[in-house]
């Protein structure tokens, strides 16, 4: 919402400067997003007169003008369609600097010399966009410095952020009311008196009927006869332009002026286009089409409030007028509408139409049903005084069920209870009445323009903001009166993160919204998709952390960061419906690695990572979490990993994760030119089995015995099956088993391998004897021989 300092001053006494006022308004809840001098500085522009206009010989749209600055005549090329002989214009002479910093120099345009430029309002920073040059009134002296003329009454422009609960402040008077409250001075309203022609009666011109009483609780109108359409006066144009509205003609400008001044949208119809002298407010018909005054044909959503005459629709209520009844240059009689529409209905229609207007934005937030006549009268009297119209006596006002002001009980102890303050009743009453609230003995009568004030708590905010938040007490946390215990999830996630860091992995945070194709790599299930995504590459929710991490790998490798080891912890999303009919959204942790195994150096080997690196990360990770029931097995492997290079993580018989090498298809899709390995774990599943409690196990006091042996067996027999067999046979005393060498070929022959295994035996109670260990050791050998047809290697 834009407003100028001078315009605000017409309604409220402001003892402070424009800047100071901005601070004070911010303090009471009207954030000033921008404040700037209305007119930016410029120089070298003087008042001049156009002496002659001739067509440029080589360009249809250009004119060659002679411009007189009172002392001298210059030849100037001008491209504006509205340049005419004898016009007074702002003339930027050679050497001038315009508000946008543009410097005027002598130029040759299509072969003709030009000494300066005739300026538009746009070029002088007075309006956003101009169609032609700025035609000045002839009262100025030729040669006068135009910047001095403009700057003499320079003003400040504010741009306020108005929160959606305060539609009453989408107007100069609304903000003026707040200013009046700040300085504790009365607000000066404009006059709402109308001089009517008693010989004419409104009943003879228009009849109003509301069918859709829910959508339009009040509809009022006046008729203004014999207006002369023309430009509105300069003061009005200036005000409208300052707040970002374009001047159109006096009638439209007056409705816009009343809108900006009072915040109540009005609409002017050409009376001759209202067939049957009737206005009927009804709901739109199914699939009804309507051409709005921006000349667009629109299909109306059902339940749209429509303003109609006896035959057809003439406006979309509260949103935009129709092309068929708009005010034109030859309009003579006006029907001026001032109505109150139900906010929800306007909002739904405006949204479905995709059409937001100054009017719809105010109606959907809530206008004042009891301010309808004030706005109507204000505009009607301006049409009489500024457009020469005659106001027909009487108002047609259909208001079947009056909307009465709310009453809110006033309880000063409640105010202090919420604010932790010690404000006196007198101060509280004074602050509230400053806002034109009717403060009675035990209650407040809330005027209907304050749609945001409904209950006692709303009054607390009014008091608080007028006192100023900075003047309210502040209390430090001095004691913590109840015990707290952090949730397990927090500790579990922290443990996972810390373990990852301890493994030398770098944490990444990646997007949760990914491309559909990416999601399809990582699950056969349909991903959770977004109805209104920001873009195609963020159209579904991630079902895995891998896409984001692979993007991170690709991004870094493209920037010559080659050795990468990332992890991420975050939620992923699954179509399965969980609680509240929401998708299941478990936490997962994932790791991806690629590049060299060791930090590169003169004395380290430059080998790249392989499968046993990622498996090692996963094993080390599981070790630090002390998960008893975990196992990494070969199983029906995930489609995104290489068939031969992937495994699954099992925790308590459930598949809880997978690790492996990404398939070539994946690597190619993410534009990576190197092998990448990764693992991902469902943390929600893992945490069900994670025990954070720790109990100390004594360190063994008695020595251990180590024995090595090497079996020769079929190559197809897995190390895990042999180790499992040995562990089982080794019993309690076998504390540790390590495969320290794998050997193939040589004398062993094809399809054979040798597994060298070191076993450590130990008892917590006693020193083991050689005999004892030998016994176990031999049983192990016999068992492995039998089970796998293995022989001992010599």
């Amino acid at each position, binding site marked *: 919402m834009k407003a100028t300092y001078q315009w605000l001053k017409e309604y409220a006494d402001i003892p402070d400067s424009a800047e100071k006022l901005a601070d004070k308004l911010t303090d009471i*809840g009207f954030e000033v997003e921008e404040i700037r001098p209305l007119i930016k500085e410029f120089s070298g522009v003087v008042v001049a007169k156009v002496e002659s206009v001739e067509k440029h010989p080589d360009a249809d749209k250009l004119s060659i003008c002679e411009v007189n600055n009172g002392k001298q005549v210059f030849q100037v090329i001008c491209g504006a369609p509205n340049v005419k002989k004898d016009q007074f214009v702002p003339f930027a002479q050679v050497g001038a600097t315009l508000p946008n910093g543009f410097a005027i120099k002598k130029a040759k345009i299509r072969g003709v010399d030009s000494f300066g430029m005739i300026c538009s309002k746009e070029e002088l920073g007075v309006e956003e966009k101009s169609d032609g040059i700025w035609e000045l009134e002839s009262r100025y002296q030729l040669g006068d410095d135009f910047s001095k003329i403009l700057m003499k009454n320079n003003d400040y422009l504010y741009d306020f952020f108005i929160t*959606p609960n305060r539609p009453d402040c989408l107007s100069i008077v609304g903000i003026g009311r707040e200013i009046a409250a700040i300085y504790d001075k009365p607000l000066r309203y404009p006059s709402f008196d109308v001089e009517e022609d008693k010989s004419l009666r409104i009943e003879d011109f228009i009849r109003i009927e509301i069918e859709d009483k829910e959508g339009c609780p009040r509809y009022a109108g006046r008729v203004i006869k014999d207006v002369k359409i023309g430009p509105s006066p300069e003061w009005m144009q200036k005000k409208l332009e300052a707040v970002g509205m374009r001047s159109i003609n006096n009638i439209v400008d007056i409705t816009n002026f009343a809108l900006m001044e009072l915040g109540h949208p009005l609409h002017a119809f050409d009376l001759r286009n209202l067939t049957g002298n009737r206005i009927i407010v009804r709901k739109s018909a199914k699939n009804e089409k309507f051409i709005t005054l921006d000349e667009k044909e629109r299909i109306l959503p059902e339940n749209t409030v429509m303003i109609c005459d006896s035959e057809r629709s003439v406006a979309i209520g509260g949103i935009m007028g129709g092309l068929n009844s708009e005010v034109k240059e030859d309009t003579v009689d006006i029907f001026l509408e001032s109505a109150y529409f139900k906010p929800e209905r306007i909002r739904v229609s405006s949204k479905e139409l995709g059409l937001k207007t100054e009017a719809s934005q105010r109606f959907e937030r809530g206008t004042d049903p009891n301010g309808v006549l004030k706005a109507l009268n204000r505009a009607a009297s301006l049409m009489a005084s500024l457009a020469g119209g005659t106001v027909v006596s009487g108002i047609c006002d259909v208001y079947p069920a009056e909307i009465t002001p709310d009453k809110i009980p006033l309880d000063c102890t409640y105010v202090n209870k919420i604010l932790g303050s010690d404000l006196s009743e007198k101060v509280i009453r004074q602050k509230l009445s400053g806002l034109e609230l009717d403060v009675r003995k035990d209650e407040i009568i809330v005027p209907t323009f304050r749609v945001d004030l409904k209950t006692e708590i*709303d009054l*607390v905010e009014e008091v608080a903001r007028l006192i100023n*938040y900075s003047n309210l007490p502040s209390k430090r946390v001095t004691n913590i009166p109840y015990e707290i215990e952090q949730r397990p999830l927090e500790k579990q996630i922290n443990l996972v993160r810390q373990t990852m860091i301890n493994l030398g992995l770098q*944490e990444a945070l*990646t997007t949760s919204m990914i491309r559909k194709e990416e999601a399809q790599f990582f699950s056969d299930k349909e991903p959770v998709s977004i109805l209104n*995504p*920001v873009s195609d590459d963020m159209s579904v929710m991630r079902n895995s952390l891998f896409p984001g991490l692979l993007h991170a790998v690709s991004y870094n490798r493209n920037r010559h960061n080659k050795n990468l080891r990332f992890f991420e912890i975050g939620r992923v999303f699954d179509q399965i419906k969980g609680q509240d009919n929401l998708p299941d959204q478990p936490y997962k942790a994932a790791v991806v690695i690629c590049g060299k195994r060791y930090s590169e150096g003169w004395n380290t080997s430059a080998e790249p990572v392989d499968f046993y690196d990622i498996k090692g990360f996963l094993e080390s990770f599981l070790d630090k979490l002390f998960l008893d029931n975990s196992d990494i097995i070969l199983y029906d492997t995930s489609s995104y990993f290489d068939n031969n290079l992937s495994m699954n993580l099992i925790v308590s018989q459930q598949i809880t994760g997978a690790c492996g090498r990404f398939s070539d298809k994946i690597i190619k899709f993410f534009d990576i030119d190197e092998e990448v390995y990764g693992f991902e774990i469902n943390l929600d599943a893992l945490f069900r089995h994670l025990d954070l409690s720790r109990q100390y196990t004594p360190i063994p006091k008695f020595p251990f015995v180590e024995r090595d042996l090497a079996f020769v067996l079929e190559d197809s027999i897995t190390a895990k099956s042999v180790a499992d067999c040995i562990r089982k046979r080794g019993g309690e005393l076998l504390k540790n088993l390590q495969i320290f060498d794998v050997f193939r070929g040589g004398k062993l022959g094809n399809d054979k391998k040798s597994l060298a295994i070191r076993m450590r035996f130990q008892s917590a109670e006693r020193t083991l004897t050689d005999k004892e260990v030998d016994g176990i050791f031999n049983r192990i050998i016999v068992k492995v021989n039998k089970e796998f047809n293995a022989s001992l290697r010599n």
Partner: protein
Amino acid sequence: MIEIIENIKKQFEAETEKVKSLSELEELRIKYLGRKGNISNAFSLISDVPAEQKPQFGKELNQLKQQAEAVYNKIEESFKTKSKSLMLDLTLPGRRSFTGSKHPLIQTAEEIKGIFSNLGFVIEDGPEIETDYYNFGALNFPENHPSRDMQDTLFISKDVVLRTHTSPVQIRVMEKQKPPIRMIAPGRVYRRDTPDASHSPFFHQIEGLVVSEGVTFADLKGVIESFAHIMFGKDINVRFRPSFFPFTEPSVEYDFSCVFCRGKGCKVCKGTGWVEISGAGMVHPNVFKSVGYDPKKYTGYAFGMGVDRIAMLKYNINDIRIFFENDVRFLNQF
């Protein structure tokens, strides 16, 4: 014949002077002390020595051998000691490990969580895909109300959204337990914003909620001020401005004095001396009603803060997108 021993001795002594490396020393050893070395050879000459000189010859030759061995050992020892300090270039870099670190946003979130944990807040968690009810309805956003436009929402279906704030966790916690409540809820939130230097369609918030009997606006001001001082320093001022959020009343927008210029005005704060942090307010009675709390009995405050925003201030980062590019040259700085 004795002079043979003298000659060997002189020659040996001269050559030991010249030994510069372990390999030269080894050559020397072979030459004199090896099985076919000069000293061994000299022993074989004993048969040619006249009988009366034999004992002396044998004795002196043995002495020479012992001396040579001692000298050899001494030189070898000195070379070995030297090789440890001189033969290696200790200025060469050592073997390094890859090291990881927490993401800077996680580090910031942990710092914030730590501060509030110390102030007695429990850390809660909630889903990122939420129902319309938890994200809006229960938080006093009426249907078809312009307040819903304050946050541009990403929809999964008509009634399911990507949460636009962490505030739904307030409702979930209050539904589950009775006051007193003192909680924070960190997490990822979503808005339908096109990515640019100051917007990301996903970012991170920390929600705070305190509900009990006798909780006031003064407590809210106090806790935000404490946070500002612990996080950014004692000289940071906090400015509270009225604002509007459907689920709080009175509502607050709070700013910190600029952490770079300490309030004097600079580029970061656009010369104002203040940086906007986030919103807060007293819990709206309608929110208490939606979770079955008695608004006459209980009062409370809620606040939010943007982790990304605070991290940007803390580390002087001016483009939010850098957090999610995961360039290791960025991540390694933390």
